[in-house]
């Protein structure tokens, strides 16, 4: 297997799907010659032309809305929103239109639309280019929400998203674009709604999303030196959510910590807590559940402040130790 970056894996998934299905096309700001703000679509315009790798005006509502309309009449658009913060500009089209059309019309219309967008902090881009907004979209019935953490997953999940007949909000992470991992040459998909135990352990379950999967794994490695055995679960998709894998793991370890980059209040971690306390795992809990999450603040610019605003490896290590003392 070849080692490629997460960004390359996103590009490969799109290239292969554009080759496979003529109804698939890309639309977004500066995705053509420029290659997108993060270079993800670089070179694709040469291979597929400006019709299928379509540069748009800076009009997020119309970009997503046009994607919804094209999807309703048989295309399978992938729209890129340059930063996930800009999803707010298209929120009516995502939340009130794409999400609701299938249900509201009694199942008569389909919206096979993928909204790809990079989220997360760590690039010094400050408050309006660094958020983690997945909980907003996970809250809306009718959407699927994906948060891949590895090159293998991002490629397989993006293919699943493109082939899905429903609107999918696909959160990539800016800091992961350069992360390398093994990805097979063969056509494969990664299913929605199947979490993966990225590391098996017995003392505590750590549920982590996107880049936090890597930080949790690094923390688990450090804690292993102190004979603490951490199980790390990556849900891959928040909607649908594989609660069964989480519940089983918590029954095994008796402890649960959720790590998310998004600010704590109203975040997806709270949903995971609720799922677990409502399940049979509740009786197996040996300690209160802990959320390790971003502070309830906008992401600040200055480097030290930015890093302190979201969970780092040492925060997870410390929190696990505290949890085990309880």
């Amino acid at each position, binding site marked *: 297997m070849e080692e490629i970056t997460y960004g390359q894996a996103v590009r490969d998934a799109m290239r292969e799907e554009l080759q496979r299905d003529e109804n698939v096309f890309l639309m977004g700001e500066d995705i053509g010659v420029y290659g997108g703000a993060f270079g993800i679509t670089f070179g694709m315009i040469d291979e597929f032309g400006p019709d299928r790798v379509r540069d748009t005006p800076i*009009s997020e509502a119309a970009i997503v809305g046009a*994607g919804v309309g094209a999807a*309703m*009449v048989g295309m399978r658009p992938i729209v890129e929103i340059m930063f996930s913060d800009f999803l707010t500009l298209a929120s009516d*089209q995502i939340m*009130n239109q794409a999400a609701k059309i299938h249900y509201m*019309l009694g199942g*008569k219309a389909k919206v096979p639309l993928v909204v790809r967008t990079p989220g997360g902090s760590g690039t010094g881009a400050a408050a309006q280019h660094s958020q983690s907004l997945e909980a907003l979209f996970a809250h809306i019935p009718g959407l699927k929400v994906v948060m891949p953490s590895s090159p293998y997953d991002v490629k397989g999940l993006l293919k699943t998203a493109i082939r899905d007949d*429903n609107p999918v909000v696909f959160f990539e992470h800016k800091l992961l674009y350069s992360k390398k991992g093994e990805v097979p040459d063969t056509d494969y998909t990664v299913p929605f709604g199947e979490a993966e135990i990225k590391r098996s352990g017995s003392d505590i379950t750590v549920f982590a999303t996107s880049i936090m999967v890597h930080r949790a794994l690094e923390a688990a490695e450090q804690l292993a030196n102190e004979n603490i055995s951490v199980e790390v679960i990556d849900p891959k998709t928040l909607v649908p959510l594989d609660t069964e894998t989480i519940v089983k793991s918590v029954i095994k370890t008796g402890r649960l910590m959720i790590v998310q980059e998004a600010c704590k209040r109203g975040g997806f971690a709270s949903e995971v807590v609720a799922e677990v306390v409502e399940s049979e795992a509740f009786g197996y809990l040996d300690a209160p559940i802990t959320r390790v999450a971003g502070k309830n603040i906008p992401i600040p610019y200055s480097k030290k402040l930015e890093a302190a605003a979201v969970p780092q490896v040492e925060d997870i290590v410390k929190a696990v130790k505290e949890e085990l003392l309880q």
Partner: protein
Amino acid sequence: MKLSKKLKLRMLEQMLLTRYFEEKVDELFAKGLIHGTTHLSIGEEAMAAGPVNALKADDFMAITHRGHGSCIAKGADINIMMAELMGKETGYCKGKGGSIHVANLEEGNLGANGIVGGGIPIATGAALAQKMQNTGKIVLCFFGDGASNEGTFHESLNMASIWQLPIVYVCVNNMYGMSTCIDDVCPTNNISDRASAYQMEGITIDGNDVLEMFEVTNNAVIKARKGQGPTLIEGLTYRWKGHSKSDANLYRTREEIEEWKKKCPIKRFQTYLIEQKIMSEEEIKKMEESSLETIERAVEFAEQSPYPSLDALEEDLYAY
């Protein structure tokens, strides 16, 4: 352009069906048989029948919350529409959409929209798909005067123009966005003036003249089909009823409403048909009677239809 007698009769029938359908809806609402809310287009019937008849059966349209007339003109089954408004399982959306979400993709109806301006980019995207797939089909996009102040209007017209999409935008200017008079919230004389910002042809016409609405839309449709890009057509009309069910009409005078009632698009078209000897008074009366019967049958169908079962509550959330 010479329009066939058949087309003229069809347009009159659709306008009558729309008028009677909505009068019935008003009545059923008062009786509590239709709930929620509903937006009536009484007085605006020419704005639906005229433009929609310029489409071919497989062309698409996106409509507004005040869209009963466009649905009827696009060939919607009145029984199924009435059932939807009554929240019945046999309705277009299985009772899940109601008055403001009647849609049927099989009839090229992309749907009404509960969000002002929400359908404009969707219609634009549907037009993009037609162009990319080279289908030769076009999209008709309805919206109101109020929607022309939404960002989606400007974003979409700009997009349609730079990409020369096969779409015709039809603004139903009934003078009021809920209670707000368009003159107070739009600095240009006409909404169609806004088209010039997008290098697009913009035309303002009498929205109560069904023949003019048809002809102007038809020209724009031909242009769009030839790949010569979009057009913005503004029809000036008036809604006789309130914005929705809760409207006490405090923002306009009785005189103004009465003045517009004299410009009834249906009466005007009927007078033309009689004067031109295309229909006799008797033939018109017959059409009115049969249209009323169609509406009565629709009510009967809807009343006899079952409500959706609770099993349907969580169905159709996702497509499989």
